[in-house]
């Protein structure tokens, strides 16, 4: 018998690759949702415009701003890890979490005012979609916040920076950016096309 023990690639690469595979299936899942919405909306021939006018473009725009900024902070955090500045990385991660919570809070305000005005998840097919799509997206944000929180706790304890764990903030960042991209499309689809 013979053999060596070399040749195992560094584990850090695993996480990134695994995350991309996961995102590929996520693209198809959100693709399914968006396809249904786009097709129905196209088939309606402008019939949904009147009811779709009741969304709040102002709050939607603010939320877009919030998410874009959170994408910046998490990528800054990744950059800081690469430069070995763990304190800065931790702070940027904290900002990302905070912005995620702000996003959900604004979304909550939006939902409440819409439901108060009589636009509930079962009002009509447009609002079916509005609540299903944004709700699902909000769920993804929530998951992202939880992941980032776990990492943040690790950063406070100092365990996050262990070499063998790889670059977890970068992997979490990939997910967070993906959720951001979903919103980039949801915003014109739900708020601007009327």
């Amino acid at each position, binding site marked *: *018998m*013979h*053999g*060596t*023990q*070399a*040749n*195992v*690639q560094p584990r850090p*690469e*695993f996480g990134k*690759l*695994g995350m991309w*595979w*996961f995102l*590929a*299936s*996520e*693209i*198809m*899942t*959100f*693709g*399914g*949702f968006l*396809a*249904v919405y786009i*097709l*129905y909306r196209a*088939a*309606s021939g402008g019939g949904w415009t009147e009811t779709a006018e009741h969304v709040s473009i102002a709050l939607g725009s603010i939320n877009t701003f919030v998410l874009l900024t959170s994408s910046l902070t998490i990528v800054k955090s990744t950059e800081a890890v690469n430069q070995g500045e763990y304190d800065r990385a931790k702070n940027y991660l904290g900002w990302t979490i905070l912005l995620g919570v702000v996003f959900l809070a604004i979304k909550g305000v939006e939902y409440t005012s819409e439901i108060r005005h009589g636009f509930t*998840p*079962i009002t*009509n*097919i447009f609002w*079916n*979609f509005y609540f*299903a799509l944004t709700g*699902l997206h909000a769920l993804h944000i929530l998951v992202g916040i939880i992941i980032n929180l776990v990492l943040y706790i690790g950063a406070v304890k100092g365990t996050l920076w262990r070499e*063998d764990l790889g670059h977890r903030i970068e992997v979490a960042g990939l997910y967070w950016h993906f959720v951001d991209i979903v919103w980039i499309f949801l915003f014109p689809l739900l708020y601007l096309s009327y």
Partner: protein
Amino acid sequence: MDHNGNTELRENSFWRKYLFSADHKTIGKQYLWLGLIMALVGGILAYFMRKQLAWPESETLTPNVYNAFVTMHGTIMVFFVAMPILLGCFGNFLIPLMIGADDMAFPRLNMLSFWTFFVGTLLLILSFFVPGGAAAAGWTGYAPLSAKPIYTGVNWGLNLWILSLALEFASVLMGGVNFMTTAITMRAEGMSWFRLPLMVWMQLSAAIIFMLSVGPTIAAAVLLLLDRLVGTGFFVPAQGGDPLLWQHLFWFFGHPEVYVVLLPGFGVLLEILPAGSRKPIFGYRIIIYSTLVAGVLSFIVWAHHMFVSGMNPNLSMPFSITTILISVPFAIVIFAMIATMWRGSIRLTTAMSFAIGTLMTFLMGGVTGIFNGSAAVDIFIHDTYFVVAHFHYTLFPATFFAAFAGIYFWFPKMFGRMLNETWGKVHFWLTFVGFNLVFLPMFRLGMAGHMRRLADPTQYNFLSTESIKSTQIFITWAAIGLLIGQAPFIVNFLRSIVAGEVAEENPWQANTLEWSTASPPPHGNFEVRPIVHHDPYNYSSPDADSDWLPQDQSLEEITT
């Protein structure tokens, strides 16, 4: 032992070792048990349906229960038998061994994947016992039938059905992420892409196809669940929804899913046939390229399930063409398999028998698929027993024949003991003959106009003739025979685990890496990480002393 500092590979307590294990071999075996037990459940459902069909006057099942049984039989056999055995068991057990790795890339994700699957299975079983019974809208769950509880009278049964499928999908996705990452990053030294055993290629193709196709169906299932639970109208015409879209999104995944099951089945054959014929595989690269082509095509054939659904007739022609086109790469793979056996010195083990049986029956399934695929013919035979016979001729070989072939082949590696060959042969002949006796007559029933999913066919005069009735009774007796024919396997399987003949390292004299380690392999798989020198099918090579040449054995080592 040397584990490259992998922290996962400590020796573990009983619980960690046998139940909540992160070892890919244990997880593979857990999937095997789960799949076999669910196969029994699915078989028993089939028995009750057959009894009802042969003797409708016995009123074995009410129409509602019959619908539930049809639905659950399909769901269980495809998602909870074929998937756990062919992907869950063979994929998890074999991929790390075949590429010479110590475990999966994410062992704990792997464990999570199994237990997610397990909970999904429990929910599905549970759904039989909730008020209203199990899901009864067909395994395809067509809307609007499935979109409101009042249409089938089933409320929580169908909700649980959706939830359990969602968990199953999530589990297979996790498994797929693991398969891909493992095969890309953890191959042993010298294991280039074109030295990979074809089983690994097939598992990877299946994982990719699954990951890229399941998304739209998950989306549709979530929307369907909202329709049922919240009262939205995504698939309810009265509320502005379009039920046709459900069919599209379901079959966008539903057709590729067939290949997700089929390709690992092919993988089993592609390992067993060269080893059983003592010949190199015929057209290794051609098989890989054909599979990739079939994989790409599988995404643009789905609407062949919908020729009579009222969809735009202009879509029928393109989808007919792609459907008939996709038979070409599969025909090439089949030819390669037959050519591999051609003039080989065949060792007719039980595994080899099942492998050849798979080929023969699958050929029938493939050929009848061409009938269904062309829109003009399909309009006549759609939703009849012709279709039932067709897909049983494709899925039964993959799910059972190929799975049995794999179990007889890799059992020694999994459990360290041999299955009894004599009883294996008995099992093979009972299964092979039984299967054909059950499903061959169904083609005739279909041509006679017998519709699917019909609890009492005798309510139609043209299905009440003596000839049809006697065929029904014949099929039912054959089905009972097929079920009883599994007894030798069950006894053999259980007995051999404790009292079978102890297996050596390489009982079949095969070349792939899993045969170069102990049976069963130790925790961490290899005492020394292997180095790969050859492609995996070097049988009867003139350069070697014996008629096989393991992948990790260099020729210089033999000659010096």
